[in-house]
């Protein structure tokens, strides 16, 4: 399992802090919050993991749905003759695929737990982005083909036919508005545009896709040639939309609200770890019911006047306890500075846990490969994952290394090894993550599982190096922060 990442959202931040792991003595005292919580990490029970569905399974379901949709067109169509009919037929097929496709896109982003655990948030976001580009193109093509096809059949001009369609066919005007909305959302989601737009702005504009989908729905059943007098088709189509709507409302709205009330997360304290790095301790009730695993992240929303409207993903920097969670944030701007000033007692609205970056039990050894900010989830895993573990930590300068003492302490306590690969390429004289170096550091590389986390470029380079060093593709797991 490999991944490529592109900058398309806020980067997750991480830092490090001395965390008393399960098998080591507390580190040297540092200034910290007045009460030092004793957290008990909740171990992951093997064989008891929540349901997850893999990428192949999801892809199979999506394709099966598309085939069913095409079969509906096939069944409804007596024949195709002449240019007008061909154009209209193509437009009808694309229209059906679009109506189905938007449902798939929404479902991918519905935060369904099996999808989140099985594919991971970053892969879901990538699929959604790719699919979104495709569907928006299909929507445009559908509109053009239908207008052209109807015009040819009716022996009128395209302009006339457009006017007829807009004014005399039910709900086509709404659907056209919907099409333009989707096109607009597609345009601002293009990489060139997103760089210029703040994340929150882009996010709220993107919500207009829901409106577009709602506007377009009625014309599908009112005008859709395959639905005319096919009650069963109309029923199942509506059922599909209703199901996804319910899922979205449940998992994106209801579940976080229920969780907020049930767990009552609030800030316990904020601790400065190193220059520009802070840890935030968050306490609550019945946190083991969250089923969070080391390596996962939450989307955090701190309910202060300046912070409540933005939600940011930060991964757990320590194994989740039954009454405490901890995240670590690197200072990268206004938002992080506001976090440093969080007062104890601040309520926290957290959605999660998300992320598929969760090693299960394995007989083989595990290699953890961290780059820069990627150390955060890996540190939680390093502290808790049983078995033979090796950590390679790549940073461009000594200053960027965080958790050094703690990592050493963990390694000493559990008999694991930490390798620090520090320095720019110029200093080292080449890429320190070359296959040769990897093999020398980890002799039985081809027998191990690897978990790679870091910035996009570093992650993909590391994955390539691991493959070249002999590690099979399916044993390489990676997660990028940018989605």
């Amino acid at each position: 399992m490999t991944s490529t990442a592109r900058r398309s959202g806020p980067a997750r931040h991480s830092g490090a802090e001395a965390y008393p792991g399960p098998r080591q003595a507390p580190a040297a005292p540092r200034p910290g919050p007045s009460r030092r919580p004793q957290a008990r990490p909740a171990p992951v029970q093997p064989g008891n993991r929540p349901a997850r569905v893999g990428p192949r399974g999801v892809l199979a379901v999506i394709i099966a749905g598309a085939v069913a949709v095409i079969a509906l067109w096939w069944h409804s169509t007596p024949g195709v003759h002449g240019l007008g009919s061909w154009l209209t037929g193509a437009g009808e097929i694309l229209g059906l695929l679009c109506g189905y496709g938007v449902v798939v896109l929404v479902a991918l982003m519905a935060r369904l737990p099996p999808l989140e655990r099985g594919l991971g948030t970053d892969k879901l976001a990538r699929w959604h982005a790719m699919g979104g580009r495709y569907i928006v193109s299909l929507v445009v093509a559908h509109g053009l083909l239908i207008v052209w096809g109807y015009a040819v059949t009716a022996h009128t001009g395209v302009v006339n036919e457009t006017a007829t369609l807009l004014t005399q066919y039910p709900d086509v005007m709404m659907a056209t508005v919907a099409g333009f909305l989707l096109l607009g959302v597609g345009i601002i989601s293009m990489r060139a545009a997103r760089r210029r737009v703040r994340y929150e702005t882009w996010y709220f504009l993107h919500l207009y896709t829901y409106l577009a989908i709602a506007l377009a729905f009625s014309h599908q059943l009112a005008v859709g040639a395959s639905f005319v007098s096919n009650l069963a088709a109309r029923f199942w189509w509506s059922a599909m939309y209703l199901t996804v709507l319910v899922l979205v409302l449940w998992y994106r709205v209801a579940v976080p609200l229920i969780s907020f009330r049930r767990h009552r997360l609030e800030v316990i304290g904020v601790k400065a770890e190193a220059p520009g790095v802070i840890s935030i301790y968050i306490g609550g009730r019945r946190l083991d019911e969250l089923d969070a695993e080391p390596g996962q992240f939450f989307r955090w929303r701190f309910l202060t006047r300046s912070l409540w409207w933005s939600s940011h993903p930060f991964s757990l920097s320590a194994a989740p306890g039954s009454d405490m969670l901890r995240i670590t944030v690197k200072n990268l701007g206004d938002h992080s500075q506001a976090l440093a000033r969080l007062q104890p007692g601040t309520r926290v609205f957290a959605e999660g846990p998300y992320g598929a970056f969760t090693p299960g039990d394995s007989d083989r050894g595990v290699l953890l490969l961290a780059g820069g900010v990627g150390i955060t989830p890996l540190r939680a895993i390093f502290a808790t994952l049983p078995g033979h573990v090796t950590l390679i930590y790549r940073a461009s300068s000594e200053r960027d290394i965080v958790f050094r003492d703690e990592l050493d302490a963990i390694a000493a306590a559990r008999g694991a090894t930490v390798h620090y690969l520090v320095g720019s390429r110029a200093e080292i004289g080449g890429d320190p993550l070359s296959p040769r170096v990897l093999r020398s550091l980890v002799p039985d590389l081809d027998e191990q599982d690897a978990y790679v986390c870091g910035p996009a470029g570093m992650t993909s380079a590391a994955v390539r190096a691991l493959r070249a060093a002999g590690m099979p593709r399916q044993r390489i797991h990676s997660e990028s922060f940018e989605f």
Partner: protein
Amino acid sequence: MRRVILAVTGTIAGLVALLSFKSHVPSVPVAATTGSGSSSSSSSSSSSTSSSGGQATASGQTTTVPGEFPQGSVAKNLPAGETAVDGNVANTAYGPVQIQLIEKNRKVVKVAVLEQPANTLHDIQIGAFAFPKLISETLAAQNGKIDAVSGASYTSAGYIQSLQSALDKAV
């Protein structure tokens, strides 16, 4: 970029394949011979549809032509007092259209469609929209020109919408 090319070509190829396969199905108009009337068979599939729609064509092939009006002659089994009159076949640009009127006491009580263009999904879609409307308007107009409308007293506002005003305008 490679994925984009793949997606575009794949989509186009898929569309062309689907449409080509459908273009080999011969177009058999939903036809009935005048006077004798073909029998209406039950719909071939999607039997849960609300509206009727089966028609056995001359070649024995069944096509489902949806709609909410009788398709095919209803000349057989008419109740007493009703007679069926078949109109001429009108050859429109999209195919032939033929209507059958059922009259009682010299008033049209029902309209059946003997022939309508059904070669493509678009034909069917338009027919499903248009025919029920046309039929209800035909029944409302009651086969013919009338000179005046008698109804309960109306105000000038009501007159504008009344049938009388339509007649006055038509003159």
